[in-house]
C-alpha cells in the first residue's frame, strides 16, 4: 500500500509581517517548520502503514529548494522517501495551480491508496489544496478527519469532525483525507531516522517531469488574484461596567440600544 503525505513548509510564527508593497509574507529571518497540521498527517500516514504491516509512505512538498529541510524532517519521523516539486515555473501558484501540480505528482507516482493532508496550512489558512487535489485526481475526499476507525485495502471508515460533533464516513480507497489535530499526537524523530534523513536522496521533479500543462501552473495557471493583503487595525479596548448588577444591566441595555439597535 502506497500512502502519500503532502506537506508544506511554513514560517514558524503566528506574528508574520506582510510586505505592504508586494502583498506577500515577509519570510526573511523567520524560521521555517513543517505546517503543524501536516505533522498530524505524517503521523497518521505512518500509523496506517504500521497497522497494515506493509507499504511505504512517500512525502511530497512543492516549494523552493530549501523546502528539502521539511522533507528530511518527515523522513526522520519515519517516512520512506521524499519528493520535492521545485521549479521557477511553479512560482506564484494559487491553491488551484498548487493542487493541480501536486495531483500531477501523485499521478506520476502512481498506485497511491491514500493521500493525507493537514486540514489547512498555518500561513495561507485556505484549506483548499487537499480538496482541490482530490478533485483533480477524481478520488473521494474526506476533510477534517479526526479518527480512522477501520481501514483495509479497499475501503476506510473514518470520523469527520463537524461543528456539532462528527460524521462517520465510509469511503472506497483510493481516497484523500485531510486531518485535524484531534487525530493523534505526532511522534518525535528517532536517531536512526535522523541519520537516514541526513543521507536520504531528495528527488526533485520539475514541471516537465510532471507533464504539466504550462497554462495550469504558476502565476499563469492561477485564477486567483490577490488584490490586497493587510493587517486589520487592532480592535479598540473594551469597557468594563461595574456597580450593582441591576444598574449594570440597565446601563448595558441602554448602550446596546444606542450602539447596535440605534
Amino acid at each position, binding site marked *: 500500500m502506497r500512502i502519500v503525505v503532502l506537506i508544506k513548509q511554513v514560517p514558524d510564527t503566528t506574528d508574520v509581517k506582510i510586505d505592504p508593497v508586494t502583498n506577500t509574507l515577509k519570510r526573511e529571518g523567520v524560521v521555517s517548520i513543517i505546517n503543524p497540521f501536516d505533522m498530524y498527517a505524517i503521523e497518521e500516514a505512518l500509523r496506517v502503514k504500521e497497522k497494515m504491516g506493509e507499504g511505504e509512505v512517500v512525502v511530497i512538498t512543492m516549494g523552493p529548494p530549501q523546502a528539502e529541510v521539511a522533507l528530511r524532517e518527515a523522513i526522520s519521523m519515519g517516512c520512506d522517501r521524499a519528493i520535492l516539486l521545485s521549479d521557477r515555473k511553479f512560482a506564484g501558484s494559487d491553491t488551484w495551480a498548487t493542487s493541480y501540480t501536486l495531483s500531477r505528482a501523485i499521478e506520476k507516482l502512481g498506485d497511491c491508496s491514500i493521500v493525507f493532508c493537514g486540514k489547512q496550512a498555518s500561513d495561507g489558512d485556505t484549506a483548499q489544496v487537499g480538496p482541490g487535489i482530490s478533485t483533480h485526481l477524481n478520488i473521494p475526499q474526506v476533510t477534517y478527519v479526526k479518527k480512522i476507525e477501520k481501514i483495509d485495502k479497499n475501503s476506510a471508515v473514518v470520523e469527520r469532525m463537524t461543528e456539532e460533533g462528527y460524521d462517520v464516513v465510509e469511503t472506497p480507497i483510493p481516497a484523500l483525507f485531510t486531518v485535524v489535530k484531534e487525530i493523534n499526537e505526532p*511522534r*518525535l*524523530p*528517532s*536517531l*536512526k*531516522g535522523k*541519520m537516514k534523513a*541526513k543521507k536520504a536522496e531528495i528527488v526533485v521533479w520539475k514541471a516537465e517531469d510532471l507533464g504539466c500543462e504550462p497554462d495550469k501552473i504558476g502565476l499563469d495557471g492561477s485564477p486567483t488574484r490577490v488584490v490586497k493583503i493587510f493587517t486589520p487595525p487592532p480592535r479598540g479596548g473594551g469597557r468594563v461596567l461595574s456597580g450593582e448588577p441591576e444598574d449594570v444591566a440597565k446601563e448595558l441595555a441602554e448602550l446596546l440600544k444606542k450602539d447596535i439597535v440605534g
Partner: protein
Amino acid sequence: MDYLLTEEQQMIKDLCRQIAEEKIKPVAAQYDEEAHFPWDIVKIMADSDICGVYIPEQYGGMGKGVFELAIATEELSWGCGGIALAFAATGLGTFPILLYGNEQQKAKYLPDIAKGKKLAAFCITEAEAGSDAGSIKTTAKKEGDYYVLNGTKQWITNGGEADVYTVIAMTDKTKGARGASAFIVEKGTPGLSFGKKENKIGIRASATREVIFTDCKVPKANLLGKEGLGFIVAMKTFDHSRPGVAAQALGIAQRALDEAVKYSHERKQFGTAISNFQGVSFMLADMAIQVEAARALIYSAARMIDSGAKDVAKVSAMAKTFASDVAMKVTVDAIQVFGGYGYMKEYPVEKLMRDAKITQIYEGTNQIQRSVIASSLIKECLAKK
C-alpha cells in the same frame, strides 16, 4: 562553546533536548509531586533510539560510548533529573554486562535494553555497605548449577521497575572485597522481591527501593566474569558511569542557570530588571562559569574513557565531584535569584535544588571521590620516582 561534536553527537544532543523540552518538562513537576515513574517517557526515549545509544550496534544499539551517554543524560536531565534517571541508571546497571558479560550474556540481555523494552538496575549498596563496599553482607552460595543469593540491597535506583539487575554479592566472605562476585538477576526469579518505595526529597520520579534476595536461585550462567571479580566489576562500572552522574548534575545546573537568567530579565524591582543589579548579574556570571567548566571537564573525561585510556578513575571522579558540587551551588543560587518565589513550589527552581543534592551523594559520595582522586595523585607521583 564549541565542543567539536560530530554530526551524530549533535543529533543525539538535539533530539534529547527536544524530548526534554516537549515531553519531559511539561510533566516534570507533576511526576515529582506524585513520585510517578515515567514509563511513558521511557517509551518515547525508546522510540527515539535513545535507550541504546551506548550499546554496540550488534546488540541493537547505536554503538556509541560514555560521551554520548553523557550528552544524552545532560539534555534529558535539563528536563528533569529524576525522569532522566530511568535512562541513566539503566546505563549504570548495564555497564557490568557491557564490560564483563560474555557473548551469551550480552546477546541475551543487551538487545531488550537497547530497544528500551527493559530497564536495568545496579545493586551494590546495603544498609551497612555504602562507601565501604567491602562490607557487603549479601551472599551467593554455589549449589550445583545455581548460585543461591540471600541478603537485602538498599536504595536501588529503578528497583522494582527494572527487569535486569546486576548484583554484587559475596561468594567467599573470608576474602573480603576479593570474595565478591557479580551476577545478573532477572525480575521474576523466585526469591527476588522488592521493599517499599523510598520517599525522597529529590529525583522523586525515579524509583528507589530495596531489592531483597531470599534463597534466590540464579543460574551459574549469570555469573559475570568469574568468582571474586565482583569488586573490580563494581569499580570499573563506576568509572564508566560517573560521567553520567556528572552529566545529570550538569543538566540540572544548566536548567537552573537558564531559569535564573530568564527570571532576572523579567523580574522588575526599583523600576528595572533585577539583572541590571550587579549583585544579581555577578551571581549569574559565576553560575555560567561553573556550568561551562563542569561541561568541559565532563566531556573531556568521557572522551578519555571512550579512547580506551587505562586509568580513568581519577578523571571520572573529578568530573562527578566537580559537576555535582557545581549543580548544588548553582541551584541554590538560582533560588536566591528568584528570591521568595524561588522558595515556592509553583516555581521550577526549588525542585532543581532537591534533584541536585543526590548527585553529591550517590555512585560514591564526593568525599569518597576525593579519596579516589588523592590516592591516584600519590600513585602517579610514586610511579614517576
